[in-house]
Structure formats: structure tokens, C-alpha cells
């Protein structure tokens, strides 16, 4: 087990190195000069040269990369061209907002998907199944910016129940945190919930047809216990895979949802960095997203072994 984790971590490091090269290369291809953009249309050529030199943009590209990656390893992702703050502090500042949003959204997705998917699998071709299929189709088809705007119009505008924009840290004002979180979390969760609903339906249908479910019923177990321990428990393994991917996706900043709700998370940070050619911030954010994906995938794979005893990491690679 420990050997497996070490091997996976080593593989992750190689993947991250590849990602960093790619990210850096793409930044070089993006047109536009960040220093010119930061200084505005009328600027002093001397200041411009000085800033370029200070930012290391005069060095050759490979030297720039090596400088960036070596300091990244120490946690120093550089300084934002735009605000002058360190990228690390910008990311740390935004992280709680994105964690809240991703956590809230995955919760919404699970609360939609598990009951709806299970019910529709238990009653195939019934009205519930019909409703689940239709609503998950709708949830997938509706763009989240539109859904977000509708929520703002209804719940923030007409009804005035919830704020339309912004983020409040949890420890400053728990109620405000929840109020600011609710609409973005539902907006982001609907899409994931729709994907997961279909997935829950198919994996529950598969689990329900297994011979051991018949054995469980033949023992005289109560229907609820059969469902919990022989159907849902077995459907959990495939569910964790897709759920993990959805969580990683949500954690990597739901750019559009954060933008619509002016929610100060990582997605918005990355979006602003693209607009202002703020290379260090964008590089840092993309690298962080890659780390998040790798970590969640590792956690998902380790969870398998806990959920299904037939999976063992001792001898396999």
C-alpha cells in the first residue's frame, strides 16, 4: 500500500513537470505584452525596460522556465504583474471561497443524484424514471450562466431572499457565507448532479440485477436493508470514480459560475489573469488545478481498495 502511494506520487510528479512545461510554453504563445498592458497606453520607456528586467522577461525562455519552476518548488510562484502581490498569497486568499463552492456544489449534486437516480432505477419506465431522465437531460442542456442569471433574477431580484453577488468568509459571518454560497452552489451543482443522476441510475440498475441481491432477499432481509447494503453499497465503487472527477472539476474553479455571481474564487482569479495577461498568476492557478486533479484521482484510487476488497495494490502496478 505504502509502495503503491509512493509510486503514484512519483508518477504525479512527472505529470506535474509535463504540465508545467506545457503551461509555460502556452504562455509564451499568447499574444500581448503584460508589462505594456500593466503600464497602460502612455508609458515611460525606461520604466518599461526596468520592469521587464525585474520580471525576468529579458532572459531566454528556457532560463525563465527554470527560474520559475525552481522557485515554484519552494512555494514561490512569483509576483502578480497586476497587483504586485505574490501569486501564492493570491491563491491562498481565494482558496476558501473555491473550497466552499466546490463542497457546496458536490453536496447539491449528490443530494440530487442519489435519491433521483436510485428511485428511477428502482422503478424503470415509471413516471419517476421519466422525470429523472427528462430533468437530467434539462440540467445538462441548460447553460450554467443562464441558470445563474435566472436564479439571480428570481431569488435575488424578484423575491429578494438571497444576495446576488460576492463571497463572505465562513468565520467572519457564517450566515452570510451560507447565503452567498447557496445560489452559486446550486447553479454549479445542477450540471454535476445531472451527470451523476444518470450514472447512479445505471450503476444501481446494474447492482440490482446481481445474483447476490436475490440471495439477500432470499435470506429474508428487509427491502431497505437489501437496498442499502447490497445495491447502493455495491453501486458506490463506480459512483466514487465519476463523483471524484466531478469534484476535481468543481475545485478547478467553476469559471463561469464564479463570474456570474462575482464570487471571488480561483476560477475568477484565473479568468482575470487571462484578461490582464498576468502570466505568473495564470501559471500558478493552472499548476494548482493540475495538482488538485492528481490528488483527487489518487484519493479515488485509494478509496477503491477500501470499498472493494477484491482490489489490491500490493502486487499490481
Amino acid at each position, binding site marked *: 500500500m505504502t509502495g503503491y502511494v509512493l509510486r503514484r506520487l512519483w508518477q504525479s510528479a512527472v505529470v506535474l513537470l509535463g504540465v508545467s512545461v506545457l503551461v509555460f510554453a502556452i504562455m509564451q504563445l499568447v499574444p500581448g505584452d503584460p508589462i505594456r498592458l500593466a503600464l497602460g497606453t502612455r508609458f515611460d520607456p525606461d520604466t518599461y525596460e526596468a520592469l521587464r528586467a525585474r520580471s525576468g522577461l529579458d532572459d531566454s525562455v528556457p532560463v525563465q522556465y527554470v527560474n520559475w519552476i525552481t522557485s515554484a518548488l519552494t512555494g514561490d510562484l512569483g509576483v502578480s504583474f497586476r497587483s504586485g502581490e505574490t501569486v501564492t498569497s493570491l491563491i491562498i486568499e481565494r482558496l476558501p471561497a473555491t473550497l466552499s463552492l466546490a463542497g457546496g456544489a458536490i453536496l447539491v449534486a449528490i443530494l440530487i443524484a442519489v435519491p433521483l437516480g436510485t428511485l428511477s432505477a428502482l422503478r*424503470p419506465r415509471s413516471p419517476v424514471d421519466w422525470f429523472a431522465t427528462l430533468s437530467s437531460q434539462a440540467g445538462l442542456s441548460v447553460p450554467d450562466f443562464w441558470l445563474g442569471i435566472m436564479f439571480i433574477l428570481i431569488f435575488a431580484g424578484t423575491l429578494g431572499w438571497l444576495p446576488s453577488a460576492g463571497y463572505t468568509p465562513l468565520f467572519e459571518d457564517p450566515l452570510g457565507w451560507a447565503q452567498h454560497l447557496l445560489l452559486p452552489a446550486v447553479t454549479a451543482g445542477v450540471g454535476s448532479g445531472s451527470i451523476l443522476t444518470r450514472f447512479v441510475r445505471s450503476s444501481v440498475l446494474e447492482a440490482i440485477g*446481481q*445474483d*447476490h441481491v*436475490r*440471495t*439477500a*432477499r*432470499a*435470506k*429474508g*432481509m*428487509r*427491502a431497505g*436493508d437489501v437496498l442499502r*447494503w*447490497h445495491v447502493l*453499497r*455495491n453501486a458506490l*465503487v463506480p459512483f466514487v470514480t465519476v463523483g471524484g472527477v466531478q469534484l476535481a472539476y468543481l475545485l478547478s474553479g467553476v469559471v463561469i459560475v464564479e463570474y456570474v455571481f462575482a464570487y471571488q474564487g480561483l476560477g475568477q482569479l484565473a479568468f482575470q489573469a487571462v484578461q490582464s495577461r498576468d502570466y505568473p498568476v495564470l501559471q500558478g492557478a493552472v499548476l494548482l488545478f493540475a495538482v488538485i486533479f492528481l490528488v483527487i484521482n489518487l484519493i479515488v484510487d485509494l478509496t477503491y481498495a477500501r*470499498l*472493494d*476488497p*477484491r482490489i489490491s495494490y500490493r502486487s499490481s502496478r
Partner: protein
Amino acid sequence: MSPVLSVRDLRVAFRTGGGLARVVNGVDFDVEPGETLAIVGESGSGKSVTSLAVLGLLPQAVTEVHGSAVFDGDELIGRSEEHLRRVRGAGIGMVFQDPMTSLNPVLTVGRQIAEALQAHEKASDRAVRTRAAELLGEVGIPDPQGRLRAYPHQLSGGMRQRVMIAIALAGNPQVLIADEATTALDVTVQAQILELIERLQGEHGMAVVWITHDLGVVAGIADHVIVMYAGRCVEEAAVDDLYSRPSHPYTRGLLSSLPLLDDPRSARERDPLTTMPGLPPDPVALPEGCAFYPRCAYRLDDRCKTEVPPLAPVAAAAENHRAATFYRIDAADEPEGQR
């Protein structure tokens, strides 16, 4: 003695895309306390469906069940799920064919036995664990205490089937239904499982219903045999009568397709094994008359084609040996091409 399980005119049909599939078409049988009844037939003859229908284990949405199944004085067909739940495991236990897929791969053996114990009575975790280990010991699993923590994939096929039997025994049932319980196992292991069930039957005083396609298995263990074809009982008899005087053409076909290990004749003198031509009928489109008519070597005339032969005594002397055929086989008259 009154039978512990009495099935009358049981009919099961599945609603399929192609129409109504009539899988069981009026089956009657009695299971006496402590006896061994064998239900024999090829795949698709309705033998497994019969047992699942009795316990209400078929998918309700697509199944139509009619007739009667009285267990211990209590009608089971058409009863509520909760009523049937109390009978499952505690009244009638079941062992299924493939112990790999019939056990849940992600739960320990101990837990799966415990579920069977807790389904019918409340008991402390400790008592349940002790009882589960006792059951594993009873079915011949070494180190029962340690094996409680094993997962099904860590056991051999024979051991898994022993676990299935332990689960079926947990509710202390009056009837044990073994549905092709040895089919998926190696021949040597089959013999061990047969022996085990026979021993447990004696110790617990259970009746056992063996559902199998293998007449060889039946010979050694059954008291009574029912032969099923296309969802009907075509012959029933005490086991010795069935083997000495098979009276339905289908039963004769089944028996003549079995190799005899103790045949005194040399290989050259021996009759070649015969196979029955044709396939069982499609349950969506059953023939109007006898379902075996298209494959029957003894078929008579239009009567077999248009009329379903009733199950009737084969001779005045043998009231309990009954066959559903218009043709009365006498020892001498074998048609051309058979034997």
C-alpha cells in the same frame, strides 16, 4: 403426515417485448417433512422459476403468478412482501447455483451470515458472531472464527457454496431449496456438497428440494422425482420407479442420454448414447397440444398435437407414478430408431 409445502396449479408468465412468455404452466407437487424431492428438467423448463415464484423472488413488475403454494398451512402466492419476507430464510431457505455471484463480493462472509441471522430475530452482535462461526463450523469450514473476516473471493468455489449453505441454514428453515447447487462446482466438490446437504438434512430434519438438470445427481439422493418440461410436470414417481420404469417419452430420452458407469456390457456391445433431437418450445408460442410433441419419438396422432395429456397414473398398480402422455409404454414396443 401433511405436506410442509404444497404447490397447486402454479402458473408463471413473464411479460416480454415479444409477448407473454408462459414459463410455468400448472405445476403441482407436495413436499413432505424431511423428504427429498428432486425437480428435474433442462434449462428453461421452468424449474427454477417455480421455486422463485413460491418465495416471491421474481421481478414483480413483469411477472404474473397464479395458483397456490401453501407453506405450513399458509398461502404464499399473492401475499404481501413483508409476509413473504418472514417466510424467506426462516421457513424456506435457498441455495443458488453460482456461489461466486450469489455472495456479495464487497461484504465479509461473517457479515453475510449475520444478515441472515438478524433478518428474523434480534440478537446481540456478540451472539450473532458466535452463531455465525458455529454455522461455518457446521458446514465444514476449517477455522470458522478466522473465516468470518474473509471475503468471498478469498475462498474456493466449494468453500463459497458451503458459506451459501450456512446462510440458508441460519434461519433454521423447514424446507431447503437447492437450485442447481452443485452445477457450478468440480465433480469431487459436488459430491462433498451433496453429502453435506444430506447430513444437514438429517441433523435438522429439513425437507430438501433439489432443482437440477442432472439425473445422475438425483438418483443417489432423492426420494421423489418430478420431471418438468416446458413449464409442466410430465412425470412424477418415487425415484426407483422413475429409473426402472420411465414412462414419459421425455424422461426416457433424458435417461438414455446418460452414460452408465456400471453397464456390464463392453463398450462395443453398449448402445451409443442417444441425444434428443430438437429444442424445447418457445414459451411465447407454446404448441397447442403436448409441448413435447415436436420432439417425441412416440407421438401417436393428431391427439398429441391438439390435446394436452393430463398427468395420470401409468398403471393401476402404481398410483403414485404418474406421467403426462397418451402413449403407454410397454416394455416390448420400442419404436424404430430408439434403443
